[in-house]
């Protein structure tokens, strides 16, 4: 009897069925939750893809759930022609890629200055950078528009042109200038990320390089930058994607030059001759899909790298 009880106790403590049951329940619940959330995230995307290849007949056919019965590329063609996809894609790509690269350079430089090259007033300047994140972009929308509409560069251009100002609206210059001066879309955030990261790079690394005779600039781009790869990848992806999806600044600065985000808003009127509202929204959906497609392809390639690097960015500091 006693031996049996002892054995029982031993068995319980070794296998501990209660603990195991708890663990397995938790695993089941967790799997269910994760699958559910993934479904919610992916469902609209799959729905869009499935709808994009449906023909008009399938919209009103309740038996068509996922796989279109009348497979067609007609929607795609219509959406491409309505958005002038080729040129809009090219413009969007040009704006996104150039601003991304310029922003990366200016924000990294500024972030390094805030982290390691402290000067008088750098604290105040950094506080102002944080302030730029907090101020809604609408607050400075009109003056910003007027700055570029009557661009005079602190009155310097008066010496060169007759009118004293140039009109930069409908050119790429507003994007180049604002990213060249680290004032583009969400640049305060990127400066913050870089500063946090550079503060975590050991000081000894930098001192060793200075002792070995490299200048400050050389230290920055030979020693510090290669070590900041996670931060660079994060900022690169964020700035590219946000610039790509941005409809606020592009609609502010560009009215004749077409990019994907503005084309999509104008797509409704462009399809005006299409009477059926459901079919119209189906075409609009195809347009959204076309806008996202390059990003999805990009994400498929960099996703692994991105997820790993964000964890090491020191975003947290």
């Amino acid at each position, binding site marked *: 009897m006693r031996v049996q009880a002892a054995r029982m106790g031993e068995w319980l403590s070794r296998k501990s069925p209660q603990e195991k049951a708890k663990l397995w329940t938790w695993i089941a619940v967790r799997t269910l939750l994760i699958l559910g959330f993934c479904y919610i995230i992916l469902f609209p995307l799959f729905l869009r893809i499935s709808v994009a290849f449906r023909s008009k007949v399938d919209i009103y056919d309740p038996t068509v759930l996922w796989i279109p019965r009348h497979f067609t590329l007609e929607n795609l063609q219509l959406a491409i022609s309505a958005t002038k996809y080729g040129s809009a894609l090219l413009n969007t790509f040009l704006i996104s890629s150039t601003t991304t690269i310029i922003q990366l350079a200016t924000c990294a430089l500024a972030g390094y200055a805030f982290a390691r090259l402290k000067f008088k007033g750098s604290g105040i*300047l950094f506080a102002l950078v944080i302030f730029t994140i907090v101020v809604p972009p609408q607050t400075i929308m*009109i*003056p910003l528009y007027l*700055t570029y509409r009557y661009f005079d560069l602190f009155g310097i251009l008066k010496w060169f042109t007759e009118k004293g100002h140039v009109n930069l609206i409908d050119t790429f210059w507003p994007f180049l200038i604002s990213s060249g001066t*680290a004032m583009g879309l969400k640049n305060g955030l990127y400066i913050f990320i870089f500063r946090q990261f550079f503060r975590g790079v050991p000081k000894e690394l930098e001192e060793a390089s200075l002792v070995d005779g490299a200048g400050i600039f050389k230290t920055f781009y030979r020693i510090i930058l290669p070590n900041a790869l996670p931060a660079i990848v994060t900022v690169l992806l964020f700035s590219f994607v946000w610039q790509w999806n941005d409809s*606020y600044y592009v609609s502010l600065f560009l009215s004749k030059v077409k990019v994907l985000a503005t084309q999509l808003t104008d797509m409704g009127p462009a399809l005006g001759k299409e009477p059926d509202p459901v079919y119209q929204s189906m075409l609009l959906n195809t347009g959204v899909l076309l806008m996202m497609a390059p990003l999805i392809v990009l*994400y498929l390639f960099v996703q692994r790298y991105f997820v790993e690097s964000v964890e090491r960015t020191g975003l947290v500091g």
Partner: protein
Amino acid sequence: MKRKSLTLEQKKAWYGVLFASPLIIGMIMLFLLPLIQSFRFSLSSIHIVESGFATEYKGFTNYISLFTSNPDYPRSLTESVAHMLVNVPIIIIFSLFAAVLLNQKFRGRSIARAIFFLPVILASSAIANLDISSFVGGTAMSGGGDGGANLLQSFELKKMLLESGMGPAIVDYITGAVDRIYEIISSSGVQILIFLAGLQSISPSLYEASKIEGATGYEIFWKVTFPMMTPLILTNLVYSIIDSFSSNKINTLISQTAFKTFDFGLSAAMSWVYFIIVAIILFVSTALISRKVFYYD
């Protein structure tokens, strides 16, 4: 030719100025001057003339007319602020929860993470968000049935929660969150990232110590993980509030006033009132939270 050479510290400071010089120029030209100008605009009326634009000082009339004679502004302002106040807590709770889930070890974790960050890529544009809801509505109308199933779910949940004796206000809040789950998930991508990065920076020795002391998983979460996460909750709170600027009604109203009716003065006044309210919300919420924030070092 002998020049007094700079010390390393001085040299570094000058390089700092050099490195930050683009930022300094941009800060003055594209932020500080526009900010001052925008405030001046809000106090005047602006006409576009041949050689640029002319302003005429009008005092606080723009601000007064916002609240007395403008039909849309007070309504969309309260709507946007209410929307923000409702959504931000849900976003933060959800993203903390998701980050804790994604931080555990399980098979297919990297795929799950990649999917959870997908909204960062896809849903940051306002158009994409706007459109899908109308489209899902369209399929439900034409017999897709997905929208109907969704509705039923939260209805059942509501009944269940009410029967378990919760207050109706809380029940409405929770079921509302369930109904807007796509919106919540799609706007919490960056927050999940930040929390996940924070979770990884918690030293494992803390968990080991508490396990040896016999703490359960539940206790470990509330006594170790949660306190260590509080600084990030503050960060995420600020980020979520700021992020809600990017797509809301007040934003479109301000842009329309400026570029459809060309009332630049009124639009500037709108944005200043909005900015001040947001600043107050930020200030109050950070002041409330930062008292509870726990700093490890």
